[in-house]
C-alpha cells in the first residue's frame, strides 16, 4: 500500500486523528463537539461531491438533514419503528424526494440553481415549523436513544466512536467515487456539460444521482444527530444551516474530500472557541471567513497542500 496516495495515506491520517483526538478530551463536552464536527464533516463530504466535484450548488441541504432528523423522530416516537428502520426509511424518502425535485431543478444553472435549492430548503423548514401536530412546531420535539440489536448508543463517548467510524467510511466511499469513471464524469460535468455529453456522459442523470447521494448523506446524519441530541428544533433545517454547510465545503476546499472534512471541523469548532469573546464573535467569525477566502481562495486544504508542494519542489 502506498501511503502517499490520498486514499490510503489520507485515510490512515484521518483514522489516526480520529483515534488520537480524545487524548486531549477532558470531559464529555469535548466528545460532543467532536461528534458534531464529524457529523458535519460527513454531510460536507457528501455535499462536496455535488458542489466541489459536479459543480452544482445547493443551498437547501440543511433541509434534507432536517428531514432525516424529523423522519427518525416521528417514526420512532409515533409509530414505534426501530431507530435503524426509521433511519433507513427517512433516507429512502429523502432520496426519493431529492430524485423527484432534482430532475427539474438541476436543469438550472448557477445562481438560479442556488435559488431553487434554497426554495426547497425553505419550504421544508416552513412545513416542519408549521405542522406542529407532528413536529412540535418551532419549540421542537424529543426522541429516544439509538437502539439497535439490543444495543443502545448512548453518551458522547460512544457516539464519538460511531461518528468516527462513519466518517472514515464516508470519506472512503467518496474517495473511491471520485477516483472512478463516475467521479471523472462528475468533474467533467463541472468542466463542460456539452463536452461531457458528446462523449456519452448522461449529464442530467449524473447530476441527479449525485444530488440524491448527497441528500441521503445529509439525511442519515440528520437521523443520527437527532438521536444523539435527543431533541430537535426546526432551525436545524433553516436557510442558515444550508449556508453554513456550503461555507464549510468552500472554506475547506472544493473538490477535495479531506478539504470538506477540514472545513467542517474548523467551522464547528470556531463558534466554540469564539464563544468566550462574546459579542465580538460575529465580527471575528466574519473576518476569519473573509481572510481565509482572500488568502486561500481554493480553500484551506488545497491551498496549503499547494504551498507545501511548491516548497518541496523549490528545494
Amino acid at each position, binding site marked *: 500500500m502506498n501511503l502517499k496516495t490520498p486514499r490510503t495515506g489520507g485515510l490512515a491520517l484521518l483514522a489516526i486523528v480520529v483515534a488520537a483526538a480524545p487524548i486531549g478530551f477532558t470531559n464529555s463536552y469535548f466528545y460532543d463537539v467532536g461528534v458534531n464536527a464529524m457529523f458535519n464533516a460527513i454531510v460536507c463530504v457528501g455535499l462536496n461531491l455535488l458542489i466541489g466535484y459536479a459543480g452544482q450548488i445547493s443551498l437547501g441541504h440543511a433541509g434534507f438533514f432536517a428531514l432525516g432528523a424529523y423522519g427518525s423522530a416521528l417514526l420512532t416516537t409515533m409509530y414505534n419503528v426501530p431507530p435503524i428502520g426509521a433511519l433507513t426509511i427517512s433516507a429512502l424518502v429523502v432520496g426519493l424526494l431529492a430524485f423527484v425535485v432534482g430532475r427539474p431543478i438541476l436543469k438550472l444553472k448557477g445562481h438560479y440553481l442556488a435559488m431553487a435549492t434554497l426554495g426547497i430548503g425553505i419550504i421544508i423548514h416552513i412545513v416542519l415549523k408549521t405542522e406542529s401536530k407532528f413536529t412540535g412546531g418551532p419549540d421542537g420535539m424529543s426522541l429516544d436513544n439509538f437502539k439497535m440489536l439490543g444495543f443502545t448508543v448512548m453518551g458522547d463517548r460512544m457516539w464519538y466512536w460511531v461518528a468516527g467510524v462513519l466518517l472514515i467510511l464516508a470519506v472512503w466511499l467518496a474517495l473511491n467515487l471520485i477516483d472512478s469513471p463516475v467521479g471523472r464524469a462528475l468533474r467533467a460535468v463541472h468542466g463542460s456539460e456539452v*463536452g*461531457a455529453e458528446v462523449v456519452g456522459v448522461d449529464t442530467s442523470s449524473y447530476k441527479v444521482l449525485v444530488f440524491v447521494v448527497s441528500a441521503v448523506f445529509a439525511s442519515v446524519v440528520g437521523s443520527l444527530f437527532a438521536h444523539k441530541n435527543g431533541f430537535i428544533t426546526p432551525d436545524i433545517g433553516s436557510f442558515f444551516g444550508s449556508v453554513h454547510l456550503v461555507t464549510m465545503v468552500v472554506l475547506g476546499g472544493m473538490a477535495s474530500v479531506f478539504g470538506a472534512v477540514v472545513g467542517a471541523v474548523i467551522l464547528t469548532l470556531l463558534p466554540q472557541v469564539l464563544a468566550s469573546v462574546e459579542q465580538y464573535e460575529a465580527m471575528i467569525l466574519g473576518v476569519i471567513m473573509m481572510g481565509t477566502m482572500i488568502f486561500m481562495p481554493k480553500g484551506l486544504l488545497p491551498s496549503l497542500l499547494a504551498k507545501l508542494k511548491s516548497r518541496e519542489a523549490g528545494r
Partner: protein
Amino acid sequence: MTLLKVENLSKEFGGVHAVEDLTFSVEPGHIHSIIGPNGAGKTTLFNLITGVYTPSAGRVLFQDRLVSGLKPYELAAMGMSRTFQNLQIFFNMQAIENVMVGAHLHLNRGFLSSFLRLPAVVRGDRECRARCTELMEFVGLAKYLDADAASMPYGALKRLEIARALAAKPKMLLLDEPAAGLNATESREIDEVIKRVAASGITVVLVEHDMKMVMGISDHITALDYGRKLAEGTPAEVRANPDVVKAYLGAHA
C-alpha cells in the same frame, strides 16, 4: 449503405436561417469535408447532427436510424463523437483525465461499483489510462501527459479534443476546425492523424478553412453558403466550381 443522411434539415434562430433545407449524405470510411464562408452554418450543422440543437425542420439519420431529437450522449453511445470550434475542455482536470472521460462509455460506470471500488473498476481504469496515453501520443501531445488542461496552449487543446473524441471509439468523428491555431507544419501532422483515423475505419466529417488540408485529404466535399448547399463533389470538382470560388475560395486557392 450510407452512414449519415441529412434530409431537408433546417435550423432557424429568430429569423436567421443558419441551416436551410439541407440534404446530403456521408459514406462510411470517407473523409467528408464541409466547407463554406464564415456563418455558412457549418457549426450549426454539426450541432444539429450531434444533438446539441434540435432541428427546426428535417431529419437526420445515422446508420439508417432516425436520430434527430436524441440527446448527444445517446448519439455518442451510437458511435458519434466530435470536437468543438469553441473549445469544450474540462479545465478543472488534467489533460489525460480529459481523454479518459472520452472513454466513459467503455468503462464500468455503475455508481455502486465505483463507490466500493470493485477490482473490475480499478482494472478498467488502469487499462483506460494506458490507452489514453497512447491516444495523446498519437495526436502529438506526448509532452502534456502530466499537464493540467488549464495550463496548455491553445493549439494543444485542439489536439486534446481530438484525443478525447477518439477515446470514445466512434464510428463517425466530426471535427470542427481541427487545424485552427496550428501552423502549416503542425497542420500537416493533423492531416496524418486524420488520415490514420480514417484508415482505421472511422468515418470523418471535417469542417476546416485550411484548404490545403481539405483538398489534400477529403474523399468528398460539401460546400455551404447561407445554410444551403452550394456545391458537392470530389475536391477537384468543388475547387473548380465557380460559385465556390466566388463565395469562398477566392482566386488564389
